């Protein structure tokens, strides 16, 4: 099996609305992929198909398995957190661990208990007694105790405060991720995850507009902080975007004429979110 996930000409229609248009994408082992796009771009639709929660047209294989037809089989090898705090409210912590242990062949209850011992969560708590952040911690503890080849996180930290969000990604990176595993993340808070990503995929109106690894990305795009004296010259190289900070202009360029532009000011690596905004605007123009 070459790819963890491979999609070829994947399409999805809701009535007349084409939610996914000829999506082609391959994801390999050991990557942390950020799936980034504006609201309604098709991120969740794509992930639902990947997780076997909905059907789609085209060739979609996750670990060589057709997700929609064999979701139960697939879930032995992958796991996901779709949305925050979706654990059932009535269940006790001990019950959710027991249920997962009995239904999941790759779940280690000892490990989950060990993760939970570092939190304030007690075994006889009910989920409805936990705060939103603690529920997310519990869910993460369960997911991290599953020996899965692929982990999919769809807005796993939406609505959590900054402390929980930071801890969430720290735990994920330090206690879970290794080169045998693969993670796909979508989130609106791109700034918080961009330092952990190995690859980014931009999706817009159901189409993949960019699929690159972070190194490629930072070598093919760069930002230059241009002072007033070089402003006109820099502008003539047609920056993708431009913003003004402390009297200087920060311009984003494609790498084609890097040698020349580098001389115009201080070069810096663009953030994924700036790049995202730039590419989305470019597409619209």
């Amino acid at each position, binding site marked *: 099996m070459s790819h963890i996930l491979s999609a070829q000409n994947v399409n999805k229609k809701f009535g007349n609305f084409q939610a996914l248009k000829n999506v082609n994408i391959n994801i390999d082992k050991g990557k942390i992929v950020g799936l980034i796009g504006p609201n309604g771009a098709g991120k969740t639709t794509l992930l639902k198909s990947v997780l076997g929660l909905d059907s789609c047209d085209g060739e979609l294989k996750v670990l060589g398995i057709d997700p929609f037809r064999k979701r139960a089989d697939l879930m032995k090898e992958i796991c996901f957190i*779709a949305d925050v705090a979706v654990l*059932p409210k*009535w*269940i006790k912590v001990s019950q959710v661990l027991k*249920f997962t242990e009995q*239904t*999941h062949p790759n779940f280690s209850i000892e490990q989950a208990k060990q993760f939970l011992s570092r939190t304030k969560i007690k075994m006889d708590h009910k989920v409805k007694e936990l705060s939103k952040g603690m529920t997310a911690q519990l869910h993460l503890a369960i997911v991290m105790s599953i020996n899965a080849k692929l982990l999919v996180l769809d807005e796993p930290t939406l609505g959590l405060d900054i402390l929980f969000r930071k801890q969430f990604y720290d735990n994920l990176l330090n206690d879970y991720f290794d080169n045998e595993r693969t993670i796909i993340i979508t989130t609106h808070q791109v700034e918080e995850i961009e330092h952990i990503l190995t690859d980014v995929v931009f999706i817009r109106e159901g189409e993949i507009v960019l699929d690159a690894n972070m190194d490629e990305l930072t070598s093919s795009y760069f930002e230059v902080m241009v002072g007033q004296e070089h402003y006109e010259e820099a502008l003539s190289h047609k920056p993708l975007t431009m913003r003004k900070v402390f009297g200087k202009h920060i311009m984003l360029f494609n790498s084609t004429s890097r040698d020349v532009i580098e001389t115009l000011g201080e070069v810096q690596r663009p953030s994924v979110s700036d790049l995202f905004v730039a590419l989305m605007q470019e597409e619209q123009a």
Partner: protein
Amino acid sequence: MNTFKALLEREYWEHRGAFLKTPLIIGIVIVVFLILGYLTTERFDQVLTNGQSIELSGKALESFNADDVSNVIDVFMLATASLYQFVLFVVLFFFLLGSLYDDRKDGSILFWKSLPVSDTQTVLSKLVTATLVAPLLFTFGLIISHLAFFIVFSVIFLLNGANPFTVLWSNIEFINNWGAFVVGCLIQALWALPIYGWLLFASSYSKRRPFMLAVFVPLMVGLVWYWYNAIFNYNLLKIGVFKTLAFLLGKSTVPFTSGMDTNAENFGFDPTDHTGVELIQSMLRGLNQSDMYYGLVFATITIALAIYVRRFRNTT
């Protein structure tokens, strides 16, 4: 198999209140009414006849014919059993209506579906909970309630100088009456299977109000059928759909009477006139009707549809 056991246990965790506490609470209510009833009659008796009549009746009880006492106890046990079956149906109605809807409403379906459990297993676990687990828990509740009831009675007899063992306990047909309840619950499940299937489908399919779909669609179909016949065939008596619905509901809520035919001569069938064994025989005979087979076919179709819809409907 371990997975299925875990799924049933999961249903028990979530619905322990409805399945276990409901029968126990009914039992407590009956016992409390019994005690209140006893206390008030004693009070009246004290005022009116200085307590003579209760003392007399206590003595008189021991001279009663054992068969008569046994009959009274049978009637009591079967009447409460019938009440419990009715309540069981109501509890299951709402359980099934929410079973494939509530987790979509609160989003927890996204957690359940992240585990390697197929949608077929999930839906069947709800069905087995309704047809086997809940009836067993109700049987347990009924047994506890009956025993509590008889213990209270024994104390009352003792207070009045009668021996509860000769008057009461030796005349109770435990096996017959509890057996009739268990068999009745299973036969209830068979008759109610098309209703359960329909409820599962409504719960799985409905985007907003499963109750509206589950209740109003059959009623609308019945009305349309009625008016179609009234207007086009000038027949005001064709109530086919309503008749079927009433038939199914009747058998599902009072399974003890499910053995009777629907013709007029059996109209006055009173289950409390019969012993537990007679009831079991009557109910089993009732199963051999073509309506039962149509019901099972309908149930199979609706359950299959519930599973089919469950695969892609993840939100409300």
